[in-house]
């Protein structure tokens, strides 16, 4: 699930976003009343939620700018988070695993060379990519494929990458999810 919210031109999404943010503000208001009786905090939270939610429910267009601003913030965070996590993957995990004798080279390819791996036929699972394909469980997600490869190839170091990969999968970059440019063809 990506953190970027799509469909800023859909009424249901605008209403839903507004309701979510209203609930968040209600919870925040309740938390700020720390020290008051629990019942009072709940009532204040509910009142704030309802008051904030009403305009957006009846006029979902009001939420459009807010949703755009939220998406802009989410994209900013996604870019920074992706840079940090890939740095951790490269400088910590892969470099450390190099010390165990892994054949995975942490260097960029020489000019003219490619890291592209062709689709393996009857692969014995020698490299990361063809090994994952070879260990693939029909109908499963990539996490199961990856762990299946870790088990079958006895490359347990791959587990160190898994938390990073899981988080990275939710931090899609802006161009992956951005609305299509203005077009003249509805069919595409």
């Amino acid at each position, binding site marked *: 699930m990506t953190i970027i919210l799509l469909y800023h031109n859909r009424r249901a999404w605008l209403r839903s976003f507004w309701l*979510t943010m209203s609930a968040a503000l209600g919870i925040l208001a309740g938390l700020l009343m720390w020290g008051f009786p629990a019942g009072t905090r709940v009532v204040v939270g509910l009142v704030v939620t309802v008051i904030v939610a009403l305009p957006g429910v009846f006029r979902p267009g009001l939420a459009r700018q807010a949703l755009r601003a939220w998406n802009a913030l989410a994209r900013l965070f996604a870019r920074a988070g992706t840079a940090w996590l890939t740095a951790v993957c490269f400088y910590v995990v892969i470099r450390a695993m190099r010390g165990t004798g892994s054949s995975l080279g942490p260097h960029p390819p020489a000019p003219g060379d490619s890291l592209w791996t062709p689709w393996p036929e009857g692969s014995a699972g020698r490299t990361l990519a063809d090994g994952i394909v070879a260990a693939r469980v029909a109908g499963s997600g990539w996490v199961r494929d990856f762990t299946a490869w870790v088990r079958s190839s006895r490359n347990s170091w791959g587990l160190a990458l898994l938390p990073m990969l899981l988080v990275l999968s939710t931090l899609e970059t802006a161009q992956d999810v951005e609305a299509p440019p203005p077009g003249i063809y*509805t069919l595409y």
Partner: protein
Amino acid sequence: MSALRTAYSVAVAVVATLLAAPVLVLALPFWGVAFLTRAVARRLEPRAGSWRDLVRFDPVVGWRPRPSVNGYFAERGDVFHVVTDAEGWPGRVGVGESDLVVFGDSIAFGFGVDAARSYREVNPRLRVKSISAPGYNLVQELLLMQEMAPRLAGKLVVWFIYHGNDLYDNLSPFTGPYRTPFVRERRDGPGWEIVTGHLNPAPWRYSAGRYRDWQRVLASLYAPTFLAERAYAACDFLLGEAKRVCDGVGARLVVCTLPSPLALGPLASRLAQHCDPPEVFDPDLPDRKIGEFCRVHGIPFVAAKPHLSPRDYQLPDDHWTEQGHRRVAEILRRLHQEHAAGGPPVRVPGTVVAEVSGGGQ
């Protein structure tokens, strides 16, 4: 040794996870909002199909909407409700009981707004039938006009010509992977001919690059270019054919041009940048050319451009908003009023009107 490697891997994983922890913590509010928004939106929104669920192959015009559809669809814009009749044309009213028949593309189809809010339905005193489908060009619409001609007798027929893609699409044998009827210059002499021999359900796999530079293509139709010359000549031919079909059955044809939002207001100057030089860009050229053809053919002509602004479109999509539909419904009401009063030329205040030089019903 293997146990040592595993322990080493686990230790590295722990260090890496600790280093990633700040990102995880900061991401929690974003995940929470995304998860809740999606969950609630799915409950608020009806399940929607895509346009592919809406059309089927047709050997005469390439594709037609499926008959008796009553469902929700979504493409780039909001989810909207679609209703088609037993023949697949939008709306419940049939051609026979309609006061006015509109031919057009997705805009005439009412793409992007609920059927009940489209220009067809907002005026309950005017029964409007639309013969239209997403992606149609004028050639397809002319073929349908020919096919339905006997049922158009005595009717007011309004032909929507959308500047945004109709003029160029008339010259193209495909729309994406779909084969479309098109027009080409005759090989055996002057004039144009309609080509349908390539129509079949197989996807069109050639010349898809046409869409890569569509803004330049669109802009070139607003300037004195070779493409514009061909596109307008083809349009002239199609207008003449449509007039002949309608005259043949005693229907009254009116042409209504619809502007591209990219040629309206401040957006026009951006589109002009695709012309070389930008100064040759003329936002009124399509209306002037088509208006002139209509004058020659004796077809009443209305340009919707003065009635519409970019706010009437679902930008970045180029279909009308509900407000845009209401504005067009008002144009149609006036057209029908004039038609019922019995006289050309059609006059809708604020529009460019071509005087009818004979031939009008």
